[in-house]
Each structure stands twice: as structure tokens, then as C-alpha cells.
């Protein structure tokens, strides 16, 4: 199956292009879209669920998205980096078909920018990035975080929350995001990533969020991916 990565335009961009005079067109477009969705679902079964990959910066979200994409579509996708906020726009890969135990589950994977409450361009300077580029990156990063929050509130059907198993999970961003996800009644799986590293502590993550299932993995090395796909099929199928 062919799958395509999209850079997703933020809702605010869409909003700026619409006006009251476009309401009728919007209704028609919406109606067409609804009919199209209903028709396609008649012939193709249920719509793929949009699964957002969320988490703090540098947890390995894009590495995981790439791993899933490579395993099931063969595509090489977005750049991975140790520099925080490398992913500054949400990216979507549609129609990722995951086959488990004789059944198949089709999802759209939405790789989102790492969520934070602060962005300081000086952080980028520490990674040998010049000031102009650092300022540009920090501006794009703030836009990306806002976009990720927008998606979470309105446009995803489930969440994979990725944490770096080496880092302390008791951070405010994690607490707030898990709370926001729960308030939306979205199904959520917590992935404890980077278990290939010596200091990884999966149990600490499980203890921090006992109300959710924690799955250990290394997206980079491909460790425990069978269980990862079992759980994705179970939770989001």
C-alpha cells in the first residue's frame, strides 16, 4: 500500500483564509466531504484512525514514526536529530496498514513537534547553530507546539505518548499532556522509548502513569516492536 507523508497546515492558516462569504461554500464542501467519507466507508470499511505521536522534545517520536513507516510501508521519512525541536511541523503518514494475528489495522500516523512550555533560542546555539538560524528555529518550534496542541484538542482519535526511559517522567509537561489527553477521552498508550540505553528505567514510567499501559521499546534499534504493534492493533484497531 502506498502511504504519503504530508506537512500539515495549521488550522490558524485555514482560518485566516476563510470569511463569512465562504460559509455556503464551506457547507457544500463539508457536505461533499461527508458524502465522500460515507461512500468510502461503505466500500472500504471504517476510516483509518488518526493516531497522534506526542511527547516532550527528544523522546524519539520521529524515530518511532519512521520505524512504523519503514516496517509497514518501506518509506524513509522525516529527519531524526539530537537537536531539540527538529520536528517543527506536524507530519502525517496516511494509510499505514498494520497486520497482526490475521487481521489488519489501518491508521494515519501524525508525528507532532515535542510539546514544551518554553523555547529559548540559546538552546540551539549549544548545537553549533548560528544565531539567525537559532532564532528561526525557535520561532518555528513555538508554532509547532501550538499546532500540536490544536491537533490534540480537535483532530486525533488516539494518542501514542512517547517518553525517553532515561529521563524523569515526573515533569509538568507530561502531567499536563496526559491530563489533557484523558480529558478528551482519547485512547492512549505510553511508550517507554530508548530501552537500549543503560540507564533506561521503564518501571519509573509505569509508576508515574499507573492508569495507562506502558510498553517498553527502542524505536532506534527496533527492540520489542512486536509488542508495540500488538498494542497498537489492540488499542486503535
Amino acid at each position, binding site marked *: 500500500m502506498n502511504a504519503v507523508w504530508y506537512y500539515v497546515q495549521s488550522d490558524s492558516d485555514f482560518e485566516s483564509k476563510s470569511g463569512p462569504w465562504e460559509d455556503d461554500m464551506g457547507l457544500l464542501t463539508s457536505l461533499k466531504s461527508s458524502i465522500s467519507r460515507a461512500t468510502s466507508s461503505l466500500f472500504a470499511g471504517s476510516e483509518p484512525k488518526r493516531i497522534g505521536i506526542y511527547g516532550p522534545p527528544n523522546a524519539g517520536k520521529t524515530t518511532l514514526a519512521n520505524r512504523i513507516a519503514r516496517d509497514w510501508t518501506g518509506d524513509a521519512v522525516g529527519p531524526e536529530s539530537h537537536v531539540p525541536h527538529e520536528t517543527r511541523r506536524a507530519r502525517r503518514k496516511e494509510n499505514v496498514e498494520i497486520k497482526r494475528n490475521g487481521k489488519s489495522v489501518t491508521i494515519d500516523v501524525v508525528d507532532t513537534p515535542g510539546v514544551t*512550555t*518554553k523555547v529559548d533560542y540559546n538552546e540551539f546555539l549549544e548545537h553549533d547553530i548560528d544565531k539567525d538560524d537559532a532564532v528561526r528555529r525557535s520561532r518555528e518550534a513555538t508554532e509547532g507546539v501550538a499546532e500540536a*496542541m490544536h491537533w490534540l484538542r480537535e483532530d486525533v482519535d488516539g494518542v501514542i505518548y512517547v517518553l525517553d526511559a532515561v529521563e524523569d517522567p515526573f515533569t*509538568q509537561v507530561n502531567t499536563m499532556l496526559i491530563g*489533557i489527553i*484523558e480529558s478528551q477521552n482519547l485512547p492512549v498508550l505510553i511508550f517507554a522509548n530508548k530501552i537500549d540505553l543503560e540507564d533506561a528505567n521503564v518501571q519509573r514510567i509505569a509508576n508515574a502513569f*499507573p*492508569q495507562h499501559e506502558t510498553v517498553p521499546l527502542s524505536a532506534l534499534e527496533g527492540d520489542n516492536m512486536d509488542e508495540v504493534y500488538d498494542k497498537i492493533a489492540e488499542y486503535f484497531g
Partner: protein
Amino acid sequence: MPEITANDDGDDPTNPGDGSGGAPGDGSSGAPEDGSGGEPSIDGIQIDMISAERIEGMRTMEKIRLILDGVRDGNIVILEKGLDPDEESKLIEVTMSEINPDGFTGIEVESYPGAGSNDSGLLGRLIGRDDPNKLTVIGPANRIETLHKDEKLISTLITRT
């Protein structure tokens, strides 16, 4: 809980929302810094403790402005009852839109982690452990550093710059 600020200019601090009555973060409650009279300049950190009662009737954006205006003035804002998840989500979004390279770098927020489903349900709600609106401390990102955090203790360092 009454609102307490380090610098009281005599305005009614319980007057909500109009932004002109000495509300936290409106920039009017600080002591004079030019030494030209009035109260002496105080070298310290202003802490605005905002009661649940004060923000109870506010709209989401009014709460967010109250918080961000205070934080952008360099104050520490303590909410007796924190924001709900949707408001937290919008707080992050608005904060991101206000970050600029030459000044505001964002916020640091501290509150206790959620109790989790082990404590939810009827019993959890009855004993109050299921309430997401917990005491919350918000300050400028460049002034607050978390030293330790778990379910029962948050230890934070607040600096002047």
C-alpha cells in the same frame, strides 16, 4: 483565600478582570524604581497568590491573560485552584504565540501529578483525589527551576534573573 502581593499600591486587589485596579501583572503594582519619592524600591520577587474565588467566574482567556500578564512582568503566580486540562492546553498555545527571542522565553508550571485511575471513581472523587484542579505555581521560564518533583513534593528554585 485573599490575594497577596509583595507590593501593594492600595488598589483593591479583589477587583477582577478590568486590568486597571492593581491586578497582578498589569504593571501598576510595582514599587517605584527611580527613587523619586513614594515607596522605596524593593529588591525582590513579586508573588501573586490568586484565590479560587477570584478566577471562578472568569473565561478561559481572562484566566490566561491574568496569568501571562503577571508572569511576563516577572512575577510568580500561584493559583489556589489550577486550570482544567482544556485551559492548560490553551495556556500552552497562547504562551507559544507570545515567546520572542529577545524577551519572553515561556513559562514554567508546577502542580502535583494527577492521581491516576487507581484513585478515581466514586471513592476518589469523594476524598477529592480525583480533582484535577490543584495548587499550581506558574512563573517565567528563566526564573524557575524544578529541583525535585513527585506525587507528594515539588521543590523549586526561584531566581531573580
